[in-house]
């Protein structure tokens, strides 16, 4: 007898009971048994037009119920059939590679090749009976917690695994296993082709040993949050007096300049963990500020009620006295200097991005999270078009923010499907191989790692190229050129534009050029001998252009760029600064006043600054 889970949906029980009756009768004749689905819900179809995602989730849930019953599913309604089969089809397109590591990603939007290395976990099929653990003869001390060489891993997929570092391959587990175990540790590699990549790789803790004054590694009892949780969970540690130090390395120009946003709450969680397990333990939280934004404030107040002491300050050091740890700190609430004795000090550190993954994609983070490059309103132009980030890969995020961010990433991927063809959004740099000598000056200077050597030739990755033009001015042979930005054309432009006594303003299109627009809008006036040429970036100004303008009689040359930290192309303005400095050395020796060339940082709304500068230059 064949058995199916019967999914009724909403219409059949309410308006078409005769469908159900006849189906059941027919099934009986065909020797088919129906099993009822207890918690089945709406198939999702009625919601499809309103909220595609929720409707899909509902359908998936129903399929999940049937699969938990180990049965295939039958439905009597054509809408349910459509919805459920659609959901199943979509779920089938998901492929997991667990226990895996991305070795290498190559390509561009629409055509990524991802090389994935997978390590086998030893247990192939498992019903979590746990017999293997009982027979395994190898005891392992896992940072304080005792377990066997084969053990239960509570994360997805819900099953056991072999710890290959300690397994002796005695084979005892295989004898009792009802599923399937393979003792050989297999490492397999495969290549996945994909059109887009979402990085949801999370983040790393800041290395707290760099904050030397807190004595991590040097003093017993000073530990990171993770180490502390582990020690408490394993029962090794029963602290009497705990100090949790916040912002270790965070909001500190010597370490991480930013606030990692989630650590305040993590620290509160730590305090709650201690109070739940050991109500009598004294807990101190020393924090510059408590940033328990939103609903976290309830949690903070709850902990105050539980007796956790909050001290506002930044500890100057942690040291040992009479075998005890002492945290020396100020308390800005009471204006006192305190020395708190404790047996355990927990360092709640900030977070740093997961660099290796971004390195594989050739994205330079310079220690910042990719979100820091994001230019408000313009999308994340620092990332290539087929790469998206979600959750803490973007910036440290709690669950709620991660969900929002992940959804944003998913929709960004979906938006790629709108196009039959992908057009690169920026003008690209192009190589003239007749002139290129592969001298590699362009490779090091590209802020996006878009230039590389392929088969002994310089190649530009169109996807990574953001069109700044730094390389085209760097190239000592003009062999690399930005589309629509021809240095030779600019020579002609300067030759015809600049007359004796003019001021040439070469302005970055992201900042200084907009300032001139604003100047017009705000009805500022500036001398009419100021001749403006728009350039992609202050780093796209060629010293040769400046020389030509001087030859044509310009009495001043203004190069306008973004402020140092605000360069649209990461580092372009620093390149411009270096060129300007070297150019000035030469101009000085060629009989010019050094200040005839000025590189100024002009924000896009600083019309007044622009006007002030050109008026000064005109005097």
């Amino acid at each position, binding site marked *: 007898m064949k058995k199916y889970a019967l999914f009724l949906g909403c219409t059949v029980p309410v308006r078409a009971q005769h469908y159900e009756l006849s189906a059941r009768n027919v099934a009986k004749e065909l020797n088919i048994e129906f099993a009822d689905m207890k918690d089945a819900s709406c198939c999702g179809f009625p919601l499809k037009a309103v909220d595609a995602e929720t409707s899909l989730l509902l359908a998936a849930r129903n399929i999940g119920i049937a699969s938990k019953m180990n049965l295939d599913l039958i439905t009597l309604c054509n809408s349910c059939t459509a919805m459920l089969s659609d959901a199943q089809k979509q779920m089938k397109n998901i492929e997991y590679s667990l226990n895996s590591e991305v070795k290498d990603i190559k390509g561009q939007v629409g055509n990524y090749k991802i090389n994935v290395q997978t390590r086998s976990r030893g247990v192939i099929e498992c019903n979590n009976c746990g017999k293997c653990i009982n027979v395994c003869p190898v005891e392992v001390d896992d940072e304080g917690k005792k377990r066997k060489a084969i053990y239960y891993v509570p994360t997805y997929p819900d099953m056991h695994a072999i710890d290959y570092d300690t397994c002796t391959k005695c084979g005892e587990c295989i004898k009792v296993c009802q599923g399937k175990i393979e003792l050989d540790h297999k490492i397999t590699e495969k290549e996945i082709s994909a059109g887009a990549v979402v990085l949801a790789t999370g983040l790393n803790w800041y290395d707290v040993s760099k904050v030397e004054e807190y004595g991590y590694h040097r003093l017993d009892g000073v530990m990171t949050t993770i180490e502390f949780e582990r020690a408490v969970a394993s029962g090794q540690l029963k602290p009497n007096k705990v100090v949790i130090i916040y912002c270790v390395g965070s909001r500190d120009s010597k370490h991480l300049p930013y606030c990692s946003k989630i650590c305040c709450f993590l620290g509160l969680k730590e305090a709650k963990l201690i109070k739940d397990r050991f109500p009598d333990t004294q807990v101190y939280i020393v924090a510059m500020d408590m940033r328990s934004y939103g609903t976290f404030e309830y949690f903070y107040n709850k902990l105050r009620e539980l007796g956790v002491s909050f001290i506002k300050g930044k500890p100057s050091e942690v040291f040992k006295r009479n075998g005890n740890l002492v945290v020396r700190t100020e308390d800005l609430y009471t204006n006192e200097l305190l020395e708190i004795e404790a047996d355990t000090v927990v360092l709640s550190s900030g977070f740093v991005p997961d660099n290796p993954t971004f390195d594989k994609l050739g994205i330079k983070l310079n220690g910042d999270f990719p979100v820091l490059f994001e230019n408000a309103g313009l999308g994340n132009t620092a990332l290539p078009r087929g790469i998206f980030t979600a959750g803490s890969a973007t910036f440290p995020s709690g669950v709620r923010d991660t969900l929002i961010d992940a959804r944003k990433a998913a929709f960004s991927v979906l938006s790629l499907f709108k196009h039959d063809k992908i057009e690169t959004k920026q003008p690209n740099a192009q190589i003239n191989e007749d002139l290129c000598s592969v*001298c590699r*000056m362009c490779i*090091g200077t590209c802020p996006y790692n878009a230039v590389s050597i392929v088969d002994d030739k310089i190649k530009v990755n169109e996807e990574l190229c953001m069109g700044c033009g730094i390389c085209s001015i760097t190239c000592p042979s003009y062999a690399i050129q930005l589309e629509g930005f021809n240095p030779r054309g600019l020579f002609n432009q300067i030759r015809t534009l600049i007359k004796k006594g003019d001021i040439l303003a070469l302005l970055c299109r992201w900042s200084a050029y907009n300032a001139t627009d604003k100047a017009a809008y705000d009805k500022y006036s500036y001398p009419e001998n100021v001749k403006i040429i728009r350039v992609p970036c202050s780093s796209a100004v*060629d010293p040769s252009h400046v020389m030509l303008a001087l030859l044509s009689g310009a009495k001043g040359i203004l190069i306008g760029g973004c402020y140092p930290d605000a360069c649209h192309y990461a580092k372009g303005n620093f390149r411009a600064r270096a060129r300007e*400095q070297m150019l000035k050395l*030469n101009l000085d*020796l060629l009989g010019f006043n050094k200040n005839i060339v000025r590189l100024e940082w002009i924000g896009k709304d600083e019309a007044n600054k622009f006007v002030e500068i050109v008026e000064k230059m005109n005097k």
Partner: protein
Amino acid sequence: MAKPLVAFYWCASCGGCEETVVDLAEDILKVVDAVDIRLWPVALDFKRADVEAMADKSLAVSFINGAIRTSEQEEMAKLLRKKSELVVAFGACSHLGGIPGLANVANKKEIFETAYKMTRSTVNPKGVFPKTVTEIPQGKLTLPEFYDTVKTLDQTIDVDYYLPGCAPPPDLIMQAVTAILEGKLPPKGSVLTVDKALCETCPLNKSKPDKLAIKEIKRISEVIHDPEKCFLAEGIICLGPATRGGCGERCINANMPCRGCFGPTKEVKDMGAKFLSSLASIIDVDDEKEIEKIAESVFDPIGLFYMYTLPSSILRRKQGV
């Protein structure tokens, strides 16, 4: 058939270009076999009057080395132009201005002050300077006029081809002579070497890291350089990326960085400005003060960036004098 007539002439130069003709070794016999040399002040006794007596365009080719610094050089260049079918600017000085061209950071007055008065080995209490005309009892003595500005050959006369280098390597000379004799010449105005920069053929290019990024600039005299490693990667300035190749990497093989005597590649007008923009681009420092410091650590910027090319650069000379 009569052998083609050829002239060699020198202007503001060191004589190295004459030397390199001799460096052709036994190949010079082939040249002598094939052509009839009608002017070569360093080796043969022909005079200006001999050239003046020739019919226009009767010389097949004149090889003129040295920059144009005096009125006599200018007159000779113009004379040879008139008498020659082809004029080849021979060597860096006539091609780009060369080392004598660095005098363009000063003017005649400053140079005379230094040369005839200031130098320690000079005793000139009366302050006598060279004059174009000096009257003496026996008659008039004349000297050519010394110009304020050193010019390249093509800023003085029309030039057909350029043989680059300080001095041009014998193999390129032989190639050029052969091409002229066989009439297999590239378009007028060509530099008779390869189009690409030196890095293309440099033996050290392999050792260059893919990403060039430097944090300080060093002078070759300050460090012991590993002859297997790219100079730029070590922070030692080498003009190889901005200089035409074809020289046979003579300096590199002698463990010295390129100084740019072959001049810039095809599209580049101002070699110094171009190279400085390249060099500045690989300074991997994100601090404005630090960048200023590094820039200032460049020793003798004009002498470095424009060692051979100042008169051919956009500005050509120090302004306002």
